[in-house]
Each structure stands twice: as C-alpha cells, then as structure tokens.
C-alpha cells in the first residue's frame, strides 16, 4: 500500500466516522423567508438537497406572511431569536447593514470580483465598502400576461407591443352589462399590485422622465412627462373604460378567474397561474412607450447571514449561502418559482430567451431598472394615492402628481436626513 492510498483510506475512515457521529453534533441553522407557496416549495427542495450533501447540517425554515415579514425580522434578530440566514428585499438592505443585523459574506468563499463578474450588475447595490453583504438567488421582472381564450374570442392574434395597441386590444376584450358595469376587463389595473412599479420605472420613463435622480435622493417625475404617464394610466379607467381598479377585488384575482384579458405582473406570478386549472394564458414583453422606449422594473430578494450566526453555525450558514446562490439552486428556483437566475450566464441562455413563458421576463431584464427604495410601503402609497385622487376624487392629474411628488420628496428628505 502506498502512502497515498493509506492516507486516503484514513481520510475516508475519518470521514465515515465524522458522518456517523454527525447526528450527535448536527448543527441546526434557521432560515427565514416570507410565505409564498412556490418559494416555500423551492426552498424545501434546496434544503433537502443541501442536507443530503451536508448530513451534519440541518436547516429549519420558518415563513411569515409577506405583510408582516419586515417587522418580524427586524424585531427578532436583536432579540436573539432570529434566523442565521435570512431572505430580505433588496431595498431593505441599508437598514439592516446600518443596524448591524447582518454580517459581510467572507471574501474567500464569496470573492467580490467574481460576483461582480457573474451576477447582474444591479446586484452590486449589495456591496458595502467593497464587501458583499447579501446575494440573490433570483431576480424578477415584469411582463404582460394575457388570456389566450379571450384573445381568440376577440380575434387578437398577437399580443400588443405598444401602449396604443394595448389599449386597442383591451377595448376589444372589455365587456359590460346593461347598466354599463364592467363584467370582463380588457386589462387589469391596481396600483396596490404591481402597477405602481410599472408606473414608476416603466411608464414614467416611456413618457420621458426618470422617476428619481441618480443618487435617488430627488423625485424627478413631477413634470409634463410624468403627468402624461399618470393621465394615460388613469384614462384606462376613466375614458378608455377598459378596466376598473377594484374589479374582482384585486387585479391578479380578476386575471386568475379568467375575467380579464391582460394583466401586468411579475415573474413570481407564474407558479400560481400554472396551478390554476382551466386558464389558458401566455406572456409577452411589456408594451413599448409612445416613442418606442422599452423599460422594465426588476427587483430581487437577497439572502444574508445575520450577525447572530457565530462559530459552527456561521460555517454552516456560509455553506448554505453558497449552495442557495449556486447555479443549481438558481435553476431549481426558476423551475419552481418562476424567478430568473441572478447570473446573466444562467439567465440569458438561448433556451430561456426562447422560452414562451420565461422569455419575455428574461428579455425584459436587459432593459430593466431596479428602484432603490427608501421604504417601499411609503413610496408605494404615494403613487397609489396619486392615482386614487384622479380616479375617485376627479382631481386633475397634474395637481395630483404634484402632491405626490412633494409628499415623496418630503419623505426622502426625512429619510436621508436620518441616515
């Protein structure tokens, strides 16, 4: 027996011994994310794979409803009850870094240069002082979902590619009862869904204005272009009459129930629609603006290691982080949740681009913008209210947008003053 083989055998024996002993020293780490069935399913697969490869580590996943998620995480970590690895919305990262709730990813296992090269450039927002604080498994973008049956009934053969075509097609599919009430929408609308993102990063840009300055400290949509965008959007309900923002209670509900021709939503909706029986739907890229500008809104959730993970838990958490941001994990995530891989090499493959469902989302990524929210809820409410003032109170879009811009600016000023 050569030295080498003996050493290998010893090594194997040691490994076996370790594995046999593993249950006794098993490290349990806790992972938190918000509850969304497909995300939970995907994570269960990832955890099972990871535990099979690392028998000495168990991962416990806890989920919370989306509404309460942010608070729960913020409250639990300082209390020492929180997770070791946590999923956060990219826009929240700042708060968590400032408060010292998460720790940087070690540069040896997660070399920043490599990440810069491998991931979509928008992920670089996760870098603080040259160190990555968090990494996404997937990114998401918006696209236009359409109901194939309603398209066929209305004689529409291809999905709209411009906003004008969007309105024209929507008109063909809108049905009203004798009293003029909409009983089938051409296009869903609902600022409390994804429409506020569509307006902020897509419509504003398509009508000719960026929503914020580059340092994101100044609101820049309070101008003619912004007003035109708001007017176009509210006219969908007021003059084109192809939509009703409260129809079926929620935009996605109307589409899911087969009572809406078109619906703008994120790639995360794919999973839920796939499990809806009897709905025949397709996906198209978001329609281009009046001057042909294409835009999209991208966002992502990141995984981070909390400051609570120390010692062997930290080591386990690092391994787990590495796995859930691996190419394999991204592929599982895509197939289960419908969210796109966070690495261009994995996302922008020819197969993905040509995929009838993922294709439009993947292509949208190429021209997508990620809003750097100070606080998504507050900034969402600003635009929700801007639309409601026009729809419910008949306010002039210009006035309404002016109120919105001032409110958002005041909020941003306060936010950055506190930083």
């Amino acid at each position, binding site marked *: 027996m050569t030295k080498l083989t003996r050493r290998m055998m010893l090594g194997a024996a040691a490994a076996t011994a370790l594995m046999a002993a593993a249950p006794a020293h098993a490290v349990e780490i806790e992972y938190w994310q918000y509850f969304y069935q497909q995300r939970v399913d995907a994570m269960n697969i990832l955890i099972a794979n990871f535990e099979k490869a690392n028998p000495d580590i168990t991962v416990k996943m806890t989920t919370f409803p989306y509404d309460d998620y942010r608070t729960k995480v913020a409250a639990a970590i*300082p209390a020492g009850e929180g997770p070791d690895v946590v999923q956060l919305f990219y826009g929240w990262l700042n*708060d968590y870094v*400032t408060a010292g*709730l998460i720790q940087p990813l070690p540069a040896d296992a997660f070399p920043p240069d490599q990440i810069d090269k491998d991931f979509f450039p928008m992920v670089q927002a996760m870098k603080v002082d040259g160190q990555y604080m968090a990494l996404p498994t997937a990114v998401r973008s918006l696209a236009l979902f359409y109901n194939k049956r309603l398209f066929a009934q209305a004689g529409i053969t291809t999905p709209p590619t411009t906003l004008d075509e969007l309105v024209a097609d929507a008109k063909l599919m809108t049905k009203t009862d004798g009293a003029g009430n909409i009983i089938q929408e051409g296009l869903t609308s609902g600022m*409390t869904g994804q429409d506020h993102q569509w307006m902020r990063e897509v419509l504003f840009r398509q009508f000719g204005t960026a929503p914020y300055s580059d340092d994101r400290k100044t609101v820049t949509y309070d101008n003619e272009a912004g007003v035109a965008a708001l007017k176009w959007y509210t006219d969908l309900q007021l003059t084109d009459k192809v939509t009703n923002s*409260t*129809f079926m*209670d929620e935009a996605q509900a109307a589409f899911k129930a087969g009572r809406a021709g078109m619906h703008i939503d994120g790639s995360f909706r794919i999973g839920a629609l796939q499990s809806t029986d009897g709905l025949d739907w397709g996906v198209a890229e978001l329609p281009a603006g009046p001057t042909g500008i294409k835009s999209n809104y991208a966002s992502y959730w990141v995984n981070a290691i909390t400051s609570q993970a120390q010692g062997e838990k930290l080591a386990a958490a690092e391994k787990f982080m590495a796995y859930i941001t691996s190419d394999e994990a991204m592929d599982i995530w895509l197939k289960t949740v419908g969210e796109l891989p966070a690495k261009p090499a994995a996302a922008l493959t020819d197969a993905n681009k040509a995929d009838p469902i993922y294709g439009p989302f993947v292509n949208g990524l190429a021209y997508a913008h990620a809003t750097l929210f100070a606080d998504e809820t*507050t900034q969402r409410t600003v635009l929700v209210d801007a639309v*409601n003032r026009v729809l419910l109170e008949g306010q002039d879009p210009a006035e309404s947008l002016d109120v919105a811009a001032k409110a958002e600016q005041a909020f941003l000023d306060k936010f950055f003053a506190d930083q």
Partner: protein
Amino acid sequence: MGLFHNPTVEQRRTRWAWTFLALPIVFYVVVRFWPTADAFVLSFEKWNLLKPREFVGWKNYVELWNDPVFWKVFRNTFAYLLIGTPISLVLSFFVAWHLDKVRFMHGTIRALYFLPFMTSAVAMAWVWRWFYQPVPIGLFNNLLSSFGFSQIKFLASTTNALPSVLAPAIWAGLGFQIIIFMAGLRAIPGSYYEAARIDGVSGLTVLWEITLPLLKPTIVFIVVFSSIGFLRIFDQVFNMTTNDPGGPLNATKPLVLLIYQTAFASYDMGYAAAQTVVLFLILLAVSLLQLYIMRDRV
C-alpha cells in the same frame, strides 16, 4: 418577630390577603402600570427597534400636530363614533322597545338579533367585504343590478367607504345593546305604566316622560360602551382594506390602524406611542364625561 409568633386574627387575615394579592400585584405592575409608563416615556423618544432609544422631547407631538394624515385619521375616528353611536343607539332601543312587547317566538327573535354579537370581527369583515364588491361578484351590487339599478361603489369611494366599513361593526354590536336595553326596560316598575294608563296618557308621552328618563343610566352606559368601541375600531377596517390599509386615500383609517402602521410597518415606535397617548386622552375624556353625567346617581 413577635408579629409572626402570635398573630391576632386580624393579622392572620391581613397576611392571607397579601398572599392572595402577591401574584396579581406583580402582574398589574409588570403588565399594566409599567407598560403604561413606558408608553408615555416612549412618546418622547425616537426609536426604530434597531438603534438605541433617543430622547427627543415634544418632537413627536409637534410632528403629530403638523401631520395632515393624523388630522384626517382623527376626523375619521370621530366619524366612526358620531355615525356609529347614534345609529346603533336608536336601532337597538327601537328593537328592544318593541321586542319587550312581543310574546310569540320572543326567544327566537331575540336570538336572531343577538347572533351577530357572537361572531369574530375578522371573519365578518371578509364576509362583508365580499358583499361590497362591484359586479359581477358582490352580493349587494348584483342585487342592485338585478333590479336594474346602477351599482354603488362601497369600498372604492372616499365618501362611502367609511360608512361601509362601519356597518358590520354596528351590526355586530346591536344584539348586545338590545339585551342591555331590555334589562333597563324591564327594571322600570310596572306601576309607573299602570299610573300612566289610568291617567290616560298616550303611548308617545309615556315614552318621553317615563321610559326614557328612567332609562338614563342604561342609555349612558350604552353610549359610553359603544363610543369606546367605535373609537377603537380596527379589525373591520384592517381586514376590509388589506390592499391599501385604511384607504382609499386614508378615507377609512382610524387611529388604531394609524398606530399599528406607524409602529409595525414604519417602526417609528416613539411616534406611534405619541399617537397612543392621544387615543388614551380621547378615551379618558369619554369616560370622565360619563362620570360627570352620572354624578347625581352615585
């Protein structure tokens, strides 16, 4: 030590009393008094759960005073009170007054009115939310359109939303108030009515001259009880407007929902605490008003 060696009966009983009270005293101090004090202290601080607490003086109150949303919410809170209390008072009295004179199926009818009181506000909020939907799914609008009327925007309206959200709260509380009114009515001695009948006084005069004055304590109790309930409304609003809590355009947002959002969505704990102090002062004023009105009865 002498005290413990030969305690008198009084001393022994005193010791029992303190034994019985020991745990409850700890409870009230830790779970009621200390948190109350903490809420007041917190209202003078700035704190977002993540950074250390920081004293800021009256800043939160000044901010509250200058916050248009707060005043909107303040008006809403009183709108719930000023619409809800009179309506439920009149309805429950009307029902109790007549139910008091009905024998046939008395218990059954009473049960019909009382059943909604036994429901959970969250469950009922969702039931009513469904009823309020536009056509083709909402019950009320489907009924309207089946009779050829145009539909009403219940929740998607800055004027209708608040009464719409309030309706299930009134509905659920009615049964309780009816029962209390019945108890009040039955406590009025029959001899009063007997005397009135002999004098040939008309029914309405009996109501104004005898029944209502004698019901004053009952009425004050119901007014205060329901006022406090409406001032603290939360479950119905939060569940009927989950897409845009307290919306549209803050048209339905009551104080408690504002507190919840400030504390548990914006993590502005100090600001939220200042809002709770305002709620406390409003409820205190209502209770003191009750004591003032009832002062000659105690």
